[in-house]
């Protein structure tokens, strides 16, 4: 990981940060991780961090096994990094079973140095992280934002299964049977209908016991807050 000093004297091959390739520090040349970076271009370049995956994003890579042998290595690297880059990632490869202490210690260090930790458990996963960082460089956050429109069934399912003990089958039962037990059989099984169904009718549904019904009723009918 700290090899390949030969390229040191040569002029930089590219202007770092432009283009669509991940720029790799030549000292990572022998890292098997490189094989696992897929779907994205790779090139070597004279950079301070190990990987540069975006104009303002850099990654330091650390295997915990290596860390165990050379605990000072990562501190030197972090120091060298200085204050460059906006998003600084420490990609930790968790390949030891005694991970608790090193991770705790690294968490503290990274917090002080404004570095975000990502833990990977396999080379594939680590490679996936690196390529995703590059691919998502300009991606809008829609994927993780609240979506305005969603189809009715899945929202209903998500809402009802948020109640402890209620599973998908129960949602199906509620959806199809509640209208049947209310006194207006032509009514349908809207969310409001379900909310209005009294407990004894819920109890009559297949798969519904007292505990489940109580949970449902607790969620739907008991007040949000105390009146204090």
């Amino acid at each position, binding site marked *: 990981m700290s090899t390949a000093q030969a390229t040191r004297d040569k002029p930089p091959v590219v202007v770092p940060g432009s283009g*669509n390739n991940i720029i790799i520090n030549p000292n990572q040349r022998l890292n098997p991780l490189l094989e696992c970076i897929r779907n994205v271009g790779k090139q070597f370049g004279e950079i301070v961090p190990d990987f540069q995956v*975006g104009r*303002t*994003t850099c990654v330091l890579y650390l295997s915990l096994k290596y860390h165990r042998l050379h605990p000072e290595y990562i501190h030197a690297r972090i120091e060298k990094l200085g204050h460059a880059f906006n998003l600084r*990632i420490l990609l*930790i490869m*968790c390949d030891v079973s005694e991970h*608790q202490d090193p*991770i*705790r210690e690294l*968490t*503290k260090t990274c*917090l002080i140095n404004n570095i*975000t*930790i990502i833990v990977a458990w396999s080379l594939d*996963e680590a490679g*996936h992280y690196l*390529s995703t*960082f590059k*691919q*998502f460089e300009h991606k809008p*956050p*829609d*994927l993780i934002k*609240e979506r305005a*429109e969603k189809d*009715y*069934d899945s929202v209903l399912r*998500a809402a009802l299964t*948020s109640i*402890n003990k209620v599973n998908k*089958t129960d949602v*199906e*039962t509620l959806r*199809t049977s509640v209208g049947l037990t209310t006194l207006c*059989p*032509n009514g*349908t*099984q*809207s*969310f*409001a209908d379900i*909310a*209005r169904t009294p407990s004894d009718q819920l*109890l*009559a549904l*297949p798969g*519904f016991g*007292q505990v489940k019904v109580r949970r449902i009723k*607790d*969620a*739907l*009918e*008991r*007040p*949000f*807050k*105390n*009146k*204090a």
Partner: protein
Amino acid sequence: MDNLLPFQASILKEIHDPATSELIVLARGLGLRRILCTLMKIYDSPRSLVLLVNASPEEESAIGELLGIMGCRNPGLRIVGYEMGKRDRQDLYRKGGLISVTSRILVVDMLQSDIPTELITGIVMVHGEKVTNLSLEAFIVRLYREKNTSGFLKAFSDQPEHITSGMSPLRSIMKEMQLRKVHIYPRYHEEIKENLDQRRPDLIELATDLTEPMKDIHSAIVQCMITTLAELKRSHSTLDLDDVNIDNAHFRWFDAIVRRQLDPVWHKVGPKTKQLVGDLATLRRLLSYLVTYDALAFHAYLETLVLSNTTNASGNARQNQSPWMLTDAANIIFKTAKRRCYVLTSKHTLASQPEVIDVDDEDAWAALDEAEGFTPQIGTTNGRGTEPKRPRWLPDGIDPVLEELPKWTVLADILQEIEEEIIRQETLTNFKPPTIGSNTVLIMTSSARSAELISEFLSDMDASAPRGRMGKKMMERKLRRYLWWKGRLAADKRGSSSLENTSSQPQGRKQDNGSGQVSEALARKDKSKADRSANRRRLRGGAPTVAPTRTEATRTGTTGTGDDADTIAAFMATQTGTADADAGADIDQDLLMAQMLSQLDTEYDDVFGLVAPEQTVLVRTYADDGDEQVLAELQPRFFIMYEPSTDFLRQIEVYRNSNPGLGVRAYIMTYHNSTEEQKYLTAQRREKEAFERLIRERGSMLLPIYESRQPVGKGHAMIKTISSRAAGGRTELSTAPSQVIVDMREFRSTLPSLLHAAGQLVVPATLTVGDYILTPDICVERKSIPDLVQSFNSGRLYTQCELMSVHYKQPILLIEFEENKSFSLEAISETTKTYAKPSGKYPTKKPAAGASSAAADAGDPRVGPTIQSKLVLLTLHFPRVRIIWSSSPFATADIFADLKMNLPEPDPSKAILVGAEDQGASGSQGGQGDGVNAAAEELLQCLPGINAKNVQYVMGRVGSVRELCDMDRKDVQTLLGVEPGNACYDFMHRGERKKKAVS
């Protein structure tokens, strides 16, 4: 009321001393509640403060009631729930007496010193077996012992089976409760045995055989379980599943065992394995439903299962179905279950009629009649004549079989016998009316469902009918309801395909036609047609308007083998409007009637004319300790245990011995060679083994000595915080102890307890932003793995990170794995595939993403983004958010302590205000809003239009979810804003338009 049996009295004598603390393990059914209440009554006084901890709401009220009966009612047991305000609670604690508190509230009150911990006289804790080092109760004990060493702690447990975890389970429980003494009372305890064997109740065990179809289903389910298990073992050859064999299948926690075995690698197992484990649970449930549900309900449940299994969240066909559903055995299950309800005949298949089993002649004749061209007679409304005609509502091609549960017949026999016995006793020459005991017959069942079923059966029973047909009337009613349900289900299924296409429309037209690719013009035409027939349609309960044309296709297509759902739906649709409306009204009446029937006693005289009104039959469910009171009140002499239960049997023994002059007879009904029998026997064996283990452990236990813990803030732990700003290099102790501000809602998790154990001062508060505040700058949002997946999907995490970034310098996302489970995200990438968003959105996005050279995702684009990808996206958009990876809550506590080192302490009053100012009404409540209905809040956040930002506001304005449902569109809009309000309202009231039209 203090008529305790000698052994109960001597237990009480052992434990009543308020100076000692101990754990009492008692076998179930021996009157634990009575002992508990007598004990609490002894302590009841305004000058003492005794807390009841860890009782469920039902237990709380039942214990309160029993205490009231015992004469302890001024003021008796007070119950503290989250509805009670902080001030009221403080008042209540100060006044003393017996108080039952929810653990979560008690922890918070102890931490905030709302309760004078040092003045607590003692704590009575039930369900002692559930206390672990992670549970809130252990936290309570720690807080209690910190300030109060003189008070007592009496822990009770009646479930020795649960004290099994770890090397020395008993010791670890006692360690958590800081107890040194344990009393163990199994049923075979000498004194108990001596007491109870004096007078034995008259026991009659009746084993009933399952019917042939039930046997078939039973063995098929077991077959499915074997297959599933084999599959599981094959995919996890490394796993030690040897002791998981099918013999254990009858055992209650079978799937839980498998689950526990898989836990350490749970995140690595694929969705297929998860499905298999889930299937095991489903199959086990089916086994028990087979003997408790009536044939129709069982069949209906199976159908729901299939339906929810074949379609995924978006209504498309699901990729990986449960493997057992595709086996031959499953086919037997479905086929036989259906055949227990009805058989499909049609003109073509009628020749093969004889293969139908168990159809009585009348039905066969009716079918024949029909085959020869008879139309069902409209005149006989209910088909209730002496010569049963086909009921008018019955669709063509369906012959009811309506197999009854064999126990019903036996039950009728027993009742007959009891009746004769009563008469015999009364006609004895030297008969004098019994001074105690009534002729009430108490029928005990294991679930409310079967209780209701039995009462329905008994009220409608036709005693003169041949065996096995006694409940025909009831079954026919059920069949009718079932068919109606079925029709709607099918209609719904057909409608759902069209829903997919229209879901983008705000109004979400449910009344759309079956085919999605109807052109615009056609759709308009159909709509006008639909409007014209609106009158008819609304009577028809949502059957699609195009049904008649499709009917022909389905009719010809399904000759007995096809999807009968369609057939029935089609039938329902082809019914003329009037007849259907009629049926609807009839069903209404049926429902009303069913409700009335629950008031059994009034109906009873008709059936049992010979029995005087006060000598009634009562159907109840087993209610553990609650049964005791029922027995005392009713004083019955005859018991029928519809399902065997050791606990209740013991209760009868106790009851028999506390009422010396009373002759008691108990009938126990079981199905021969069924799960029920197995379960009963296994339960008995397990309890015995558990007690033996406990007694052995007690004999060899090393008793821990508990050092009294220094209250936090005085020990050396606080020297952590050293101010370096003092002049002259002089170090000075900061006066504030090391503290962490914790959101109220987080007290459901184990972390606060562990933080406290690690020497932090835990300050509960209602936080708008973040879960834990470590320093004035560091704010932590905790996410367990399922939480993480869920809040990525819902977008809640994005909002939370947004809020944290705005208000704190160092926002932190804590990803917390579970102790003993694998510390790895790897498999999550696999599981998220099942959580993948419905295709609706993704394809439209993809070309754009592809154009900008960044392929949408590394993997297969249809799979959807993995959790890792989402994490990447999150860090890219919030470069300031740090991530803590913690392998367990214990590790988290360490990391927190580490992070806090040398940094100033947070200020609770400031933390509460953060982010609260823009919440409007709820902000003013911030300080004391600890009473939040967490389940309701979670549900609320799932609704469209409501997000992490406005949820507090909504909760401040609206009482409950129910209330929100009752609001009209305008109000919802003013609450949430026009767009989100619309979305929310449409969601809640989707598909209700028809009802509006009717009313």
